[in-house]
């Protein structure tokens, strides 16, 4: 694994950061991409320049890529397949009033 992939600073350059932006009326932060920066402050500055140039956001999160724990492909079936046939987990057995938003 190269230094860049691991998100650790190395001779190749600055560590990798993942960028999350909350849209103007979005409810939560959405992953929009990644970038390189030397530290957290610089990552926020870069994220502002790279990912909010077209008026997309009102809030930015950045996090070092190495700090994200991710599930792997090998775990795909044990993790996700069992939910496929469990329709009772979906809240579809009662009526949602029309005036309840965000469901």
């Amino acid at each position, binding site marked *: 694994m190269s230094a860049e992939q691991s998100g650790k600073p190395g001779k190749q*350059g*600055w560590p990798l950061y993942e960028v999350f*932006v909350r*849209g*103007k*009326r*979005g*409810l939560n932060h*959405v*992953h*929009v991409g990644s*970038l*390189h*920066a*030397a530290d957290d*402050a*610089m990552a926020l*500055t*870069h994220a*502002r*320049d*790279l990912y909010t*140039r*077209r*008026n*997309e*956001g009102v809030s930015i999160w950045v996090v070092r890529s190495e700090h994200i724990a991710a599930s792997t492909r090998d775990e795909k079936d044990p993790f996700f397949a069992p939910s496929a046939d469990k329709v009772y987990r979906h809240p579809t057995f009662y009526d949602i009033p029309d005036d309840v938003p*965000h469901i």
Partner: protein
Amino acid sequence: MSDDHVYLTLAEGHEDDTRWAYGTGFEDPLHGVDTTVPEGVDAGALAADCVALADDALVSAQRLAEWVTRAPELEEEVALANIGLDLLGQARLLYSRAGQVDGTGRDEDAYAYFRDTDDFRNVRLAELPSGDFAFAVVRLLVLSSWRLAHFRRLQAHPDPVLAAVAAKGVKELTYHRQYAAEWCVRLGDGTDESHRRMRAALDEVAPYLGELHTAYDVRDEVADDLRQVTRAAGLTLPVYRPLPGSGRAGEHTEHLAPLLTELQGIARAHPEATW
């Protein structure tokens, strides 16, 4: 919420504008602003002020654009280009205003492309060659601190258009100054080499500080800004010996003419071209 594409989600609230790549939810900074010159405002002086501020921005934008493909990192290249485009936007509004009030009816292109070196009123600090990255961020710190202090005052200008342009610019310039200040501290407080380059950049900038006057007295405010950043960066602002002459009077260094040649070349070769 639509989760089909992250940018569709981000752009929600602008459903009429699904072509987000071309921008969403833009606002015209001059929307609803009365463009008649108020009584008591000297139109000639107003036009001259607008041209001087626009020239600072246009020349700075051109120098910043020179960093494209040459910046140390891709992210910095985008940042510098963004800042340049912010300034270009300010220049366009200010040139348009100058053309409205000076009686000539000239458009923004006439000011940008069809005036000669002697007609430009930018301060000389803006036209100095790009130099290294340290010089770029030191110059940006100085010019954005100065312009920000000036624009803050201009928000109360009796001309509503100039006041609106200033109100828009204040937000942009606050970011420019922050970007520059962060880099100045990082480099000044960095390695021996970056510290040395920052000192050299400050030495180069210092003689031009004396030229940064405005109709308002903002010298203390700008000096405070610079002192705060240089202190945090472990640097000191050298005592300056102001150079004689002034870009505001049309007196320029030998560096402005080649800049304008490049900036104006295509527009002058094809005067009525559109694209």
